[in-house]
């Protein structure tokens, strides 16, 4: 009865490896173009949120499960990693992994009660669950989580470096993680698992009829996405040296949802573009912090109403048009629309 | 052609999205007259009715009601003029009770005052509905649903009654009683009727005139007897019926 969204780029064409590699290289050079500790720090935070948003988009956009409790996994990864560093003297590198495992466990736990639910009920339950996780962290009086004040002074990474280089090292580390996560999601989305998830998203009845187990796949999608979110949480804790319950709740969730949706739900470039754009808006309004959320809210509504498929998709269309226009200039005969076809046409032209 | 036309459809084209279904349709329903629209399945009869009663925008042409332009007005505004459309497939409100469904037929301000009397009249016509007045519409049988749909349409005094295939999917006995009611309304000569019907026997029973719609165009209009003799109509339309 509910129509499923069919986000764009839901069917992943062969990743244009060279273009992606060039973009990554360009991104890796950014800290040199922009040699300030503060500026690089903003970019690190942006990349950490990109990891989180990629994980969220995997379950929300690709698997089509209305999970609005992703921040619980992020927080559990962050707190879990932090606590292990403090109490078990775990090296920060391992804490990242531990955060991922914590996120996975919680994600599976959260997935189980949603198995019999549809659409909006899933979002209600997961959203409520995340709120409860936040309350539990905040109301903890045993001193484990540090309550509302947060979990302080976790030993960080790259402490031996001077601040600028430490931040740059962080930037490259998180950039590498973003690249790995993107690649993993792209591969997953094209794998039989990804196909199964998208089938279940677009038609659960058809998927089950073809023998795809909807429950097992949902748990798996949660687990994968929970792992990445947990890693993002641990990254956040280690990078900032602390974490507090304010990473969760309505306000942060609003920001991440804005990032994912304006970028384009269900695509890989969507969360990347969206996170960058929202960070840019936030930085532009840095002198008027009170107006940030108002502006973001208005932008979110405007994008949903006027650019329903997200910025990344529209940008892709513009790019296609430019490519077509360039082809016309070179008077390449218009080939078939498929990428393979275009390739052949290009060869003929040279 | 009747001198005092109540409904005039002039050069109307309409469709869904990019596809035009009805092209340049012309028809007139006189005051108190019953016009029957016939034509093969899927050629746009329901689409034309939806355009006339404001559910669908026109892409060309005009519709006049009592001399006044009504195209461009929304369906919910046209009810005030006394246009009642009983759609194909009943379109009941599945989770409202039978009585609430009927009451919705009296929604326009003028009719709401007299809803009690109107309800009694409908129950007098369909005594079975009175027993089922508290039952949700979704649980009714097909025949009962049709009774509710027609009853809902008669909850106020229409000047123009638009009925889309009232016999669809009903057993012959019930079809008979449905047509008795339509014939009753037609005989009063106070309400004009625009009726879509596939079964020519019933068309001859109630229609003053018949229009044939084919491939989205009105290809003929005439008396029922003329059309029954028309070889072209018999072939294109009646010939399509399994006999």
């Amino acid at each position, binding site marked *: 009865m509910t*129509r499923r969204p069919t986000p764009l780029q839901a069917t992943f064409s062969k990743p244009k490896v060279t273009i992606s590699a060039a973009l990554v290289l360009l991104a890796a050079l950014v800290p040199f173009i922009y040699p300030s500790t503060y500026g690089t720090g903003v970019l690190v935070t942006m990349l950490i949120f990109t990891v989180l948003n990629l994980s969220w988009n995997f379950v929300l956009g690709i698997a089509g499960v209305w999970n609005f409790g992703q921040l619980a996994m992020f927080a559990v990864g962050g707190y879990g990693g932090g606590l292990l560093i403090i109490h078990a003297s775990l090296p920060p590198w391992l804490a990242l992994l531990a955060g991922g495992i914590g996120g996975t466990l919680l994600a599976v736990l959260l997935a189980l009660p949603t198995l019999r639910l549809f659409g909006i*009920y899933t979002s209600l339950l997961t959203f409520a669950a995340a709120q409860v996780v936040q309350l539990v962290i905040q109301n903890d009086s045993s001193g484990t989580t540090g309550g509302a004040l947060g979990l302080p002074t976790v030993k960080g990474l790259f402490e031996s470096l001077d601040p600028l280089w430490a931040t740059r090292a962080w930037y490259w580390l998180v950039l590498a993680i973003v690249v790995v996560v993107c690649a993993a999601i792209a591969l997953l989305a094209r794998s039989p698992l990804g196909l199964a998830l998208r089938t279940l998203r677009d038609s659960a009845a058809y998927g089950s009829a073809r023998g795809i187990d909807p429950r097992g796949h949902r748990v798996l999608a949660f687990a994968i996405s929970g792992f990445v979110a947990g890693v993002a949480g641990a990254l956040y804790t280690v990078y900032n040296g602390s974490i507090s319950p304010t990473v969760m709740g309505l306000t942060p969730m609003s920001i991440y949802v804005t990032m994912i949706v304006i970028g384009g739900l269900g695509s890989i470039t969507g969360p990347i573009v969206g996170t960058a754009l929202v960070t840019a808006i936030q930085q532009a309004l840095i002198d008027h912090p009170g107006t940030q959320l108002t502006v973001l*809210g208005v932008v*979110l509504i405007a994008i949903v109403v006027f650019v329903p498929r997200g910025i990344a998709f529209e940008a892709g269309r513009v790019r296609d048009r430019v490519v077509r226009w360039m082809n016309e200039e070179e008077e390449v005969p218009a080939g078939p629309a498929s990428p393979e076809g275009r390739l052949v046409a290009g060869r003929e032209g040279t | 052609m009747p001198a005092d036309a109540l409904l005039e459809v002039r050069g109307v084209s309409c469709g869904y999205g990019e596809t035009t279904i009805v092209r340049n349709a012309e028809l007139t329903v006189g005051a108190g007259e019953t016009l029957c629209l016939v034509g093969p399945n899927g050629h746009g009869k329901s689409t034309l009715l939806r355009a006339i009663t*404001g559910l669908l925008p026109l892409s060309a042409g005009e519709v006049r009601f009592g001399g006044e332009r009504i195209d461009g007005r929304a369906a919910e505004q046209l*009810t*005030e003029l006394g246009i009642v459309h009983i759609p194909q497939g009943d379109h009941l409100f599945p989770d409202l009770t039978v009585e609430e469904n009927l009451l919705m037929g009296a*929604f326009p301000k003028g009719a709401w005052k007299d809803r009690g009397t109107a309800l009694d009249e409908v129950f007098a016509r369909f005594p079975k509905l009175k027993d089922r007045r508290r039952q949700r519409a979704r649980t009714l049988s097909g025949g009962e649903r049709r009774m509710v749909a027609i009853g809902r349409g008669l909850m106020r005094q229409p000047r123009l009654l638009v009925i889309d295939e009232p016999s669809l999917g009903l057993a012959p006995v019930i079809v008979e009683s449905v047509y008795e009611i339509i014939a009753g309304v037609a005989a009063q000569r106070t309400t004009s009727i625009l009726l879509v019907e596939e079964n020519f026997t019933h068309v001859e029973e109630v229609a003053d005139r018949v229009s044939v719609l084919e491939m989205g165009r009105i290809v003929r209009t005439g008396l029922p007897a003329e059309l029954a003799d028309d070889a072209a109509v018999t072939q294109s339309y009646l010939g399509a019926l399994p006999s």
Partner: protein
Amino acid sequence: MSDILSILVSTVVLGSIYGLVALGMTLIYGILRVLDMSQGSMVMVGGFVGWAVMTSAGLSPWLAIVAAFAATFALGVLTQVVSVQPLIGRRGTDFEMITFITTFAVAMVLSNLALQFFGPRQKNVPELVGGSIHLYESVSLPYQSIVMTAIALALMLGFALFLNRSRYGIAIRAVAQDLDAARLMGVPIKRVFPLVMGFASAIAGVAGVFLATQYFASPTAGDQPLLIALIVVIFGGLGSLQGAIVAAYAIGLIQAAASVYVSTTWALPILYGVIVLVLIIRPQGIAGRSLEARL
């Protein structure tokens, strides 16, 4: 004995307030298929209107209730026009999910504007009426609670009657079930949708005044009521009015009992556990119909 009595007293008060918020939520979902995340903000705005009228202007609490009703009504209408109406009938998008997000964005804007205008500090709002009846040992029943419960019940009953008996009430339900047929009956759908959201928001606004007199007015005052309203509507079955009202009191009872016997801190987590159980046993809530039945 006094434990039980005080649990009952809080159950009735909490249940009535939750009932009001959840009523609007379930109404909007039932009619528009929108899970309106801005309902929490309406509670918050209602609280601030209460504060402005009673504390700032020093006027009567009754005026505060009326003003909160009017202000949140207007805001609800605006929310519908801006964030829901343009999405109706759009192809290729999941309406429920996308309106969940847009109403969420409205909530974001409203809370943030409140923060800008009123600052983060909690604001005290006086009681509607003072005094109390002594019941038993340390338990007493404030007049304020009686008044709030009475108003809440009256509003809920009024709404139930409105929806079941009145011309517009039946029409509102009809619109949700068959849009085209409702138009053919003459129901002005362009007016009905904003009206529904206006009324639903207005009752949330009144609940906001009540909550502010119990606690404070603050920019985040709507967050917890939103969460509880979500739990209530899951529990009651989305779209079911009776379900929402019954569930509101049930949730009030669970929360009151958990606060007395365990601790206030754990009341919500316990509540959540109960909800998970309910959903495992009855995925459509206690009064919701199964998805198949709705097709």
